């Protein structure tokens, strides 16, 4: 039975309850708007359900096991037994705690959460189809809308995700029992994070990558310690290989790749995981109905107020462009809500920090030395290796370094790169420094707690000024 159309009015419609969408909805609720948030899958989106959070849970859990089993140097002898099923269950618990929290926050801020897929009918109307037969549909009339439909893993032709042999990153975070072996296609940050988790669970991992190195886009000296560690963990690499096809075998899958010259290689494993990037989701909201087109890369174009070409329709998060990072989406969501509320908000951030949760971690923010030169600065660089950090040595992880890039004349900090323990946390201080317009001296003269890894940030700025204490300054 079709219930028939019911029309509801809302001041702000937010399509997609991922990080960009739910943040926008909550902020708009705080600002007193009447907000409806539409989600057809899971509140929290990719980040909470299939990305950042579950992957970090598994990374930490496997690290606990791996570290315990590899601490003979510290006099610890253990051979932890890992129940992968329970590990996944624990991870799921973390996820549902967080998504439940988001739902509560939405409710507490007066945000109406509606389940169902929303698509535009015209410039001021959304049609929301509810899952399942006979559920009917509703229409919502809105004054403003925010498109926050996110992204999905890219499928290579011939490698359509089946959840059995060919897994996406999302599947890979939900396996019921670990496979004996996998072929991971893609050595980007998702591929590397997953590969290292699996390797620490004693899975045979082979990574095939089309480009020539791990973590394309990151500077060589940042990627090097990660690759070194991956090799220590027994991960095999094969570079310059484009995934071509696969077939089912007795063991599981046989993945065929081709190099530039057309030479074919074969890799056999129980499963294959394809992690070659993500593409924006723009095909579910019927953009044609509002005359909005995507750019050449499939993204929705927005201005520095998160506005699309239509004055009353905004877009935030992965759907508007790289970098596809939850914290960027979150910022855009906040700004979109504030701009709609008439505040003088804008996307005026100076840098977006990024973190890779490999072993060791990588954290970056702002300009590299080369980028600073291109921007017309005369960069000065300060570096501090973790092997000179007391705290790093006591954690047993002293690979890597902190590097800061500053303008020589003014001392303004322009960028930073960290590879090593807790790089994802350390980068936050440098992001703050950049947003504040802090100089090298500002950071160098701030007392940092001893003994901590954060001292390395201070020492790197001192090194740029030529007077780090714990290394020789060049």
């Amino acid at each position, binding site marked *: 039975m079709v219930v028939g159309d019911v029309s509801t009015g809302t001041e702000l419609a937010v399509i997609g309850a991922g990080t960009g969408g739910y943040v926008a909805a909550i902020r708009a609720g705080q600002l007193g708007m009447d907000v409806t948030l539409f989600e057809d899958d899971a509140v929290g989106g990719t980040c909470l359900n299939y990305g950042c959070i579950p992957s970090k849970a598994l990374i930490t859990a496997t690290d606990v096991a791996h570290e315990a089993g590899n601490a003979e140097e510290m006099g610890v002898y253990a051979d932890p037994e890992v129940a992968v099923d329970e590990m996944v269950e624990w991870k799921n618990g973390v996820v549902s705690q967080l998504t439940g929290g988001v739902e509560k926050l939405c409710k507490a801020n007066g945000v109406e959460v509606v389940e169902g897929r929303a698509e535009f009918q015209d410039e001021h109307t959304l049609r929301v189809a509810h899952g399942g037969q006979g559920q009917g549909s509703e229409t919502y009339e809105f004054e403003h809308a925010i498109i926050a439909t996110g992204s999905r893993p890219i499928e290579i032709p011939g490698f359509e995700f089946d959840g059995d042999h060919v897994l996406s990153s999302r599947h890979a975070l939900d396996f019921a029992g670990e496979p004996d072996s996998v072929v991971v296609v893609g050595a980007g940050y998702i591929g590397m994070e997953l590969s290292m988790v699996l390797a620490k669970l004693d899975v045979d991992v082979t990574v095939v990558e089309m480009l020539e190195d791990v973590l394309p886009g990151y500077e060589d000296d940042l990627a090097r310690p990660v690759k070194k560690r991956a090799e220590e963990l027994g991960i095999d690499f094969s570079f310059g290989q484009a995934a071509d096809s696969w077939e089912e075998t007795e063991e599981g899958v046989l993945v065929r790749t081709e190099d530039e010259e057309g030479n074919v290689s074969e890799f056999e494993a129980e499963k294959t995981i394809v992690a070659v990037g993500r593409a924006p989701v723009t095909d579910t909201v019927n953009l044609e109905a509002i005359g909005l087109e995507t750019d050449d890369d499939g993204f929705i174009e927005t201005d520095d107020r998160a506005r699309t070409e239509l004055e*009353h329709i905004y877009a935030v998060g992965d759907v508007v462009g790289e970098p596809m990072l939850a914290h960027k989406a979150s910022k855009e969501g906040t700004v979109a809500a504030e701009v709609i509320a008439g505040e003088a908000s*804008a996307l005026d*951030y100076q840098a977006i920090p990024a973190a890779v949760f490999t072993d060791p971690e990588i954290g970056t923010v702002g300009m590299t030395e080369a980028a600073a030169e291109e921007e017309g600065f005369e960069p000065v660089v300060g570096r501090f290796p973790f092997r000179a950090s007391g705290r790093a040595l006591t954690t047993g992880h002293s690979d890597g370094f902190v590097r800061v890039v500053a303008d020589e*004349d003014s*001392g303004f900090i322009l960028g930073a790169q960290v590879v090593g323990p807790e790089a994802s946390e350390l980068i936050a201080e440098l992001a703050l420094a950049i947003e*504040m317009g802090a100089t090298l001296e500002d950071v160098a003269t701030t007392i940092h707690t001893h003994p901590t890894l954060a001292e390395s940030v201070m020492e790197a700025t001192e090194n740029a000024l030529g007077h780090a204490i714990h290394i020789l300054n060049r």
Partner: protein
Amino acid sequence: MAREFKLPDVGEGVAEGEILEWLVEEGDAVTEDQPVAEVETDKAVVEVPSPVNGTVREIHYDPGSVVEVGSVIVTFDVEGEEAAGEEVEAAESEATGEAAPGAAESEATGEAAPGAAEPEAGGEAAAKPAPGDGAVETGAPDSPAELEIDEGRQFAPPSVRRLARELGVSLATVEGTGPSGRITAQDVRAAAEAAAAGTAAEEESATRPRDSEPADATPAPEVERRDRTLATPKARGVAADLGVDIDQVPAVEEREGEALVTEAAIRQFADAQQAAQTADAAAVAGTAGEREERVEYRGVRRTIGDRMEESKYTAPHVSHHDTVDASRLVEVRAELKERAEAREVKLTYMPFVMKAVVAALKEFPFLNSTLDEEADEIVLKHYYHIGIAVATDAGLMVPVVENVDQKGILQLAQEVTDLAAQARDRSIALEDLQGSTFSITNFGAIGGEYATPIINYPEVGILGLGAIQERPVAVDGEVVARPTLPLSLSIDHRVVDGAIAAEFTNTVMEYVKNPALLLIE
């Protein structure tokens, strides 16, 4: 479709420019490459061409504004691409076309600079309404005028950047007073106040009053306006005679909830208004009796200042003085002058001195060098580009004659004349003001014998020329009158010692004393 146009990089090392004049007005049609503005950089005046065919939608800076390279200075509507929303456009042109009530300064001077009219809804000091400020359509009518986010790194904390947006201040126009020039909240507030203080300060450089703007528009001190006012018919008559808006006159009392004004109150208000108007006019005109006047230190003046400071505080200067008998030079020049005139070239002493200097530079190569402090190396130049100091209305400029060693006297004379003329009328190209290896300053053209010139850093030497005129000279035990040329050479003592300076000067003097030597050069 609106197309934003940013102040382009008009020349090497130029970071900002002052908008001298707009050559177009809002609503004008423009063609590609048509000059739209004259911009004075720290080195020259350049015309900025339109990048598109279209119409001028909005001019973002008034004449006199100092704008950083990369800031949006004008928005065009591009032909063929659809204009973004007629409503917005209409609203904007209305706002800018009409002299905004309350803009007392602009009317008092009979001058409404383009773009000076502010939409009042913008609140405090909303300086520049930005394109796409679609208050009309967004349903957020109270939002302040929206500023574009400046590109490139901004050295201001996020809270200050937000404040700037709230006050409608473009960070690109704010000079930071924090460490290393970081922009503080105070800087932004000061900039907003300066903008609110209005166009008065900018009048100086905006020379053309708008003739269509008679000065009789209502001058309005900041007064709230009521909707209704009670007054006797006679009082209303007085108000009409005095040109007073009765709804602005402070109420004497309230009657049944309505404000009441009397004839006396109206007269008082009219007097106060007139006084305010006179004061405004006086402030703008800079009436006699002012003991001090403040002139902005910027543009060419600022550049000269910065360069002088850098030179004097970097290079330890030593000046060496001498005088040379210029009798032969005077004769030779007099002989050649007519021939030069026949070729329509004005021949001065300068080309001869330039040639003499180049000959001496070849003998003493360290005078034609720069000190590379970073590399700890002295860079000897094997080319001879001579900078010639020229006094212009805007201040000192030093155009450069390239490869002086390879050019003849007449060619040099012609080039010096041309470059000096271009420097004076500010049409000189930036590249003609760069790249000299040694400089000459001819202060004697105005008068005087000796000086202590400041080196055109990073060069290491500059030769000053006094006036060539007859002076007493001892010849064979007798004092006779001879035309002499006083020379003042300043050198960077880090690179050149006094002995070398003296020898260099001696060589220059050789050639001046005996110009025939130039023939064998």
